[in-house]
């Protein structure tokens, strides 16, 4: 593993290496036109240099004692030991898990409910769908700032409800380190549950309508029909939505920056922000890249089983 990474590093200094894919292509039995290779060269460079090269470089840096500038010594897993003894990183990880569980559960439940209910031949279906999905068009920055203002303890929702006569009303999640993370969950759910609705609605529309008639004939109640018959049928859609949400959880950065800046204190720090701060502000490249590697491993742990289940058996094109 290490020798491979070292080689990768030596090859990296920017000179673009197209020789590998072109060479293997030339060995192919059919004659390959130069124009094809020319067309695919950018992709080969991006995969080789950016996706594989930069990834390997980051992993390599995480085994060095790099501070402001990279050095290429080898300190083994020292940075990881430091990382997992770092209070801020541990809080970040914990926040990612808590946020992730709440966010994914809430998005799935709300998205499923909206999809099922909107599928009941309701009036103004198009309008409702538009309303449920529009937050997804907004960036996490805009989302975070909108919610930061809405939940502003002094002038936002809490104050407005109190002014309306409910003196004891308390809703100041952002001001309290114990609850600020839940405010992030709320804003995240607002932005993302429409997407879940769209995905699951596509699944629902694919369910054979005769199943409903059969269930009716057998006198099965509606809730039972959805829970025991529909839910398993749209299982793959739910898995897809869950994976997408889980990836978004690991990537969570913009929303935190816009809404809480990681605060109060370090109450809403997340790993992605830990990496950014250590790479670009705290001049601790070794620790930052170690944290980035932990993020990479987390994503792979989510992704590999799913990709395997979805694309592994049929090497055909993805749906």
């Amino acid at each position, binding site marked *: 593993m290490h020798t491979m990474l070292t080689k990768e590093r030596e090859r990296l200094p920017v000179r673009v290496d197209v020789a590998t894919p072109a060479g293997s292509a030339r060995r192919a039995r059919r004659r390959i036109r130069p124009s094809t290779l020319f067309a695919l060269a950018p992709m080969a460079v991006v995969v080789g240099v950016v996706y594989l090269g930069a990834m390997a470089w980051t992993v390599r840096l995480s085994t060095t004692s790099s501070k402001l500038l990279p050095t290429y010594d080898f300190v083994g897993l020292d940075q990881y030991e430091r990382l997992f003894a770092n209070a801020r990183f541990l809080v970040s990880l914990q926040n990612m898990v808590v946020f992730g569980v709440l966010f994914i559960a809430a998005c799935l439940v709300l998205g499923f409910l909206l999809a099922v209910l909107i599928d009941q031949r309701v009036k103004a279906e198009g309008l409702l769908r538009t309303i449920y999905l529009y937050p997804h*068009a907004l960036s996490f920055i805009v989302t975070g700032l909108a919610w930061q203002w809405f939940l502003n303890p002094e002038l936002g929702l809490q104050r407005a409800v109190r002014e309306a006569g409910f003196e004891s009303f308390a809703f100041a999640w952002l001001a309290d380190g114990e609850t600020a993370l839940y405010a992030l969950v709320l804003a995240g759910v607002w932005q993302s549950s429409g997407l879940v609705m769209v995905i699951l609605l596509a699944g629902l529309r694919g369910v054979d309508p005769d199943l409903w008639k059969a269930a009716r004939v057998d006198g099965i109640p509606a809730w039972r029909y959805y829970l025991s018959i529909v839910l398993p049928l749209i299982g793959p859609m739910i898995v897809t939505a869950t994976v997408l949400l889980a990836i978004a959880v690991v990537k969570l950065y913009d929303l935190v920056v816009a809404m809480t800046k990681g605060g109060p204190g370090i109450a809403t720090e997340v790993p992605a922000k830990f990496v950014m701060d250590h790479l670009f502000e705290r001049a601790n490249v070794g620790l930052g890249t170690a944290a980035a590697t932990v993020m990479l491993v987390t994503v792979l742990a989510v992704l590999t089983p799913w990709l395997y289940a979805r694309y592994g058996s049929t090497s055909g094109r993805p749906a």
Partner: protein
Amino acid sequence: MTSAVVTSTDRARGGITARGRRPRRLTAGRIGLYAFLASAALFFLLPAWIMLLTSLKPMEEIRQGTIFALPLAPTLEAWAAAWGSACTGLTCEGISVGFWNSVRILVPSVILSVLLGALNGYALSFWPVRGANVLFAILLAGAFVPYQVFLYPLVRMFSSVGIYNSLAGIVLVHVIFGMPIMTLLFRNFYASLPRELFNAARVDGGGFFTIFLRVMLPMSTPILVVAVILQVTGVWNDFILGLTFAGRENLPMTVQLNNIVNSTHGVRLYNVDMAATVLTGVVPLAIYFVTGRWFVRGIAAGAVKG
């Protein structure tokens, strides 16, 4: 409401494409259903509504703490300030600077990444090269990996060739990270076209680029629309790449917005903050409302990109 429900019930009875449950009459459940859908709509609309109201109020009204109240003296002053004179850290030239930066980043990024995606998808679909699908698989998997894993080495590479903190740098980064989803879109689209079409063009002596430019690209309008929508909203909404690669001169609108709101010292002008936020959100929202169904197709396909 009652008559509305009755009409939809009637239509349901005669409808052919039955989906979901058939409502037979206005029941308590039916009322509950509408109540739930309406409160969900309220939940989704409220923050944006508050944001809009706040941007139209003078500060005195905001200090009274009545965010739900309609503005007593609506004014566009906050909008003018947000656009032209709000302070982003050091300078006070408003969010318009970020707007034009975003436009300058957007145009080349979208054109390049869509064309490259189309070319990749076309090559992958019609000109099999050994190893190309492996490359594509790695590219796709890469789309799931957080940017943090790539950023530092990319910064080093870019600065060694002198495009770090430049317009060229940020455009290149958008092209790189847009490539997986763009390639996927076009590959799936071209794979769904009849193979005979390509074979006929080959028999007529068309070469790689001739067929691409004169046969495939003119047929690609639907997927081009989806790709452009996806890329425009993606690039416009990006924060982390602009923050890292664009440099002080080219900071996109999202970064400027965050600076205006989150790094002001002294008294915060919430109406200006909210006007700037609305201005930043208006571009993707306009695309969403205008393109509707196309947008939904785009995000369904582009959800991968996150």
